[in-house]
């Protein structure tokens, strides 16, 4: 799991360096993490499943063995988290 928050002060981390494993080139800078990467792992898994199920909450609910409104509430929680990250 990609660390997204500073273990010292809990501020949001940024990407400083990326490396090519093939030629060992390193690209350094100060890049924002993608918004989806800021979500906790469980929420990222949910988003992944949601996309793989063509955005069908009914299918998600049946696969997760949860009720439709429960799955919809989980999605609403993720949406509000994403909105808060974007602010």
């Amino acid at each position, binding site marked *: 799991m990609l660390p997204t928050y500073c273990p010292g002060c809990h501020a949001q981390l940024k990407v400083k360096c990326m490396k090519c494993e093939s030629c060992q080139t390193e690209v350094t800078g100060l890049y924002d993490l993608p918004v989806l990467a800021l979500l906790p792992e469980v929420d990222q898994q949910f988003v992944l499943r949601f996309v793989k199920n063509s955005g069908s909450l009914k299918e998600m609910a049946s696969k997760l063995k949860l*009720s439709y409104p429960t799955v919809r509430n989980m999605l609403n929680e993720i949406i509000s988290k994403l909105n808060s990250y974007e602010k």
Partner: protein
Amino acid sequence: MKSKNLSEFLFNPFTRIAGWQAFGIGLIFIALMGVIGTYANIIFDGVIDMHIEHETTLTHSFILLAIDIISLVFVMFVAGLFIAGKFRFVDILGTMTLSKAPFLLLAIVGFFTKMPDMSDVLKDPFIMLSSPSLVFLLLLSLPVILWSIALMYNGFKVSTGAKGTKLTITFITAVFVAEIISKVLIHFILKRL
């Protein structure tokens, strides 16, 4: 872990069951409540009410139950519109119908309860204490009502996705309003029959 599952099953089954499925299961409970309640001389005359009534009929019992469910679902749906954005009517319908399920316990216990003659009770109310099964039924009614209210709360919460103080205040108000509406409807509808 097991106790968590049991408590979820008893108090918040709506994380797994809602919509038409909950409505279908709820209707089975309602039908059993109507039939057993009639033969047990128990009526459910309000959203969170249970009373002993001698010589009740199946029609009378089912009319009361229908009024209960319609009042509860209607008020909770309107309350949901105030505090939540998008939600499905069928989820409110299903969760609220299933929330009445604990009352079946009272109908079943009432079936085995020895009811004293009402004319004797009117003369001396303490005569009720002479029937231990009746005392048990009356004592059981409080936890059953609380259980049903807990189910209603969780059903409302899951169906609307609302949370916080707004949810609690709206829910409490809605239960009171639904109870009043059901009592008024029972009064007017049964008077015409």
